[in-house]
């Protein structure tokens, strides 16, 4: 520790080189931390939103194949089931096609039992159960389109349903599955459509998480070999499947992250080599007055680690600040960015990457400088 001052002084000797190296490491570690955060953030979204007692029942066949409404009663009589809520993905458009946000029709009566974690505004649920054209809107959507409670809005069903719905906002959702989001009543949609009795998914709530596997099994068994078989998954598995679709991006992010580390490794090694080469004489002098080579090796490596850590702090700081700005404007960037932060594991990984870069980049030139023949070095005059 008594050599800290020496290490710092040496770093400040060529300020420009140190600054350039730190900046170069900072920029690369910034990207690295963002890239390694990606999969972790996705998993955290999963852990945050998924409840251990909710089950998603969808058709085993694919989006084009709906489930019959009659399944609701059949699922509800399964032991340990507290609530069953059918939903239809309406996919309506508000004003412009580019304004799209998820809008879903659900049965109103058990919605507060099914999603108590959504943070409904006070009184919203009661109104939702009373008024057939009612809708509940996520805070993000309210802000984005400057909507007020009590306002009427129209959604054009150009996509999956060839009908329009006109809805009255009766309350807000603070913590829905997405920052921008809307739910309205399925009985209203059914009525406009002429009661086809179609359901996209059934959400099922169990009385305890232990009961979930049993419910999944018995519901799947109940409809096995029928003309509409079900595929039930716990909410975590269901959302995990959705996130899993982005796995190619995650693999890409990991590979890119690795390349970034190798790239900075080269840059840092170069800077360390340059700085050590210039000090060959000095190192020889230090050794001739009694400094041992292992100590010199350690000092040189410490220099490079300090540089890398400075870069790490700068890079992570920048990433942190940028993500803060992002989360303010997250609405336009989709559901993921809302929860975007550098998670601790990614931070740790970046930190370790910085240390690794510091040590590996300086090891070879430092070792050769520390072991170099003193007499030969001092004899060369430049």
């Amino acid at each position, binding site marked *: 520790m008594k050599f800290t001052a020496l290490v710092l002084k040496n770093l400040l000797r060529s300020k*420009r*080189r140190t600054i*350039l*190296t730190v*900046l*170069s*490491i900072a*920029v*690369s570690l*910034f*990207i690295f931390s963002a*890239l390694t955060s990606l999969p972790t953030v996705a998993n955290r979204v999963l852990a945050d939103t998924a409840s251990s007692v909710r089950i998603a029942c969808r*058709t*085993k*066949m*694919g*989006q*084009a*194949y*709906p489930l019959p409404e009659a399944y609701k009663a059949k699922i509800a009589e399964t032991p340990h089931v507290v609530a069953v809520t059918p939903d239809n993905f309406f*996919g309506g*458009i508000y004003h412009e*096609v580019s304004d799209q946000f998820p809008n879903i029709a659900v049965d109103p009566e058990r919605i507060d039992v099914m999603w108590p974690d959504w943070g409904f505004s006070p009184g919203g649920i009661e109104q939702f159960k009373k008024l057939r054209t009612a809708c509940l809107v996520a805070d993000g959507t309210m802000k984005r389109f400057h909507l007020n409670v009590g306002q009427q809005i129209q959604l*054009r069903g*150009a*996509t*999956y349903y*060839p009908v329009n719905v006109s809805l009255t906002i009766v309350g807000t959702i603070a913590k829905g599955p997405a920052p921008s989001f809307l739910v309205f009543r399925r009985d209203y949609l059914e009525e406009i459509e002429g009661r086809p009795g179609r359901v996209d998914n059934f959400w099922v709530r169990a009385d305890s998480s232990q009961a979930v596997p049993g419910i999944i099994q018995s519901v799947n068994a109940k409809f096995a070999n029928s*003309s509409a078989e079900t*595929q039930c998954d716990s909410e975590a598995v269901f959302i995990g*499947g*959705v996130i*899993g*679709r*982005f796995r*190619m991006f995650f693999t890409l992010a990991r590979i*890119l992250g690795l*390349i*970034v580390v*190798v*790239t*900075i490794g*080269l*840059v840092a*090694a*170069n*800077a360390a*080599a*340059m700085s050590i080469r210039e000090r060959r004489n000095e190192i020889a002098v230090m050794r001739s007055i009694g400094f041992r080579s292992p100590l010199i090796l350690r000092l040189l490596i410490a220099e490079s680690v300090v540089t890398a850590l400075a870069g790490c702090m700068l890079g992570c700081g920048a990433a942190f600040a940028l993500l803060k700005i992002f989360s303010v404007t997250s609405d336009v960037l989709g559901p993921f960015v809302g929860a975007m932060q550098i998670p601790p594991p990614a931070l740790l990984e970046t930190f370790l990457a910085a240390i690794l870069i510091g040590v590996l980049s300086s090891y070879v030139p430092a070792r050769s400088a520390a072991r170099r023949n003193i007499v030969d070095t001092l004899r060369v005059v430049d």
Partner: protein
Amino acid sequence: MAIPLKYSRRSLLVRRVSNAMTGGGMALVVAVFVVIMAMVAGLAHTIQHSGSDGNVIVLARGSSTETGSSLRLDQFDGLKFLPTIRRDAAGNPLVSPELAEQVLMPSPNGTLDNLAVRGVLPVGFAVHDQVCVVSGRIFTPGLSEIVIGKALIGRYPGCNVGSSLRFGRRSWQVVGVFEAGGSSFESEVWGDVHSLQEDANRGTVFNSVRLKLAQAADAAALIQRVADDPRINLQAEAESDYYREQSAVASQVRVLGILVAGIMGFGAVFAAMNTMYAAVSARTTEIATLRAMGFRPRAILTSFLVESLVLALAAGVIGVLLAMPINLFSTSFNAGLTSATLEFDFRVTFAIVVQALLFAAIMGVAGGWLPARRAMRMSVAAALRRT
């Protein structure tokens, strides 16, 4: 008088190890850029080549995608006999009503993929003229038979001629494999539209109608005619335009790629600056000597910029070469919940190579500018006195 190029090149070779490391860093940045751009180009190519010239796609008014559009039988009947539609030898109009659905398919790695299934009539093969059956035969209408795109072979169990694939409510016999010029159709399963409608309980609903225009017919006029007809309430678009819009996902990936490569580029610029500054300070005496010999300051500036540029371009070439093998790879892409899995090849195009070299050159100039200016402004007397 300018300093010969040879001087720059030889100077680079003097500090071989140092320059190799800086160049290596730049080469990796360029390689990353090329790989991401090759992915974007491959994805866009696959989607955009799904359109045929002279084809028009008709969707429900307000729909932006085929899967999110529904058309009734009477709307289809309103389209069938429009005058500008091409007819085949037997006089039947080349109009293809289509069903585009996605079914859940368990993939070998344990996830559930969205597999795209298209319901067509035999006329569909005449309308999509890039599609041709390369082994086996076309499905027989009314039977549970399907043909599969080339990219699907072996991807799921049962994706071979002679086997059967289970989806929807029944098992479908695979009777043929088709090629479609590398387009997204090659990741699809095609079957009889009526069998598929029946299997999904979809009644007589279609997702889109594709028309082939008569030679020299005016696509814009037809599109306008459909737009003006309030009875059918549909919208028409040239297939090429439709698929260009569908490839918007590729431009999102492109933005991501440019962002990552751009930021990494900044890191590489700092590294280049470092090496060039070191080069300038190591050659102080040399620069002063050059000046004393009569080379203008501007010539010194140019020479150092050229040195940095040569390093960057060499790195660029190496980066492109490093990334070239990606051409041999293909990958599957799934952009979200509502889109089907798509197989595509990476494509390093000539334009990407040019862009990559330009990117390298920009890094070189940006990294060399400040050190070169420093070399230019050096005081001759002070520099010579130093030794």
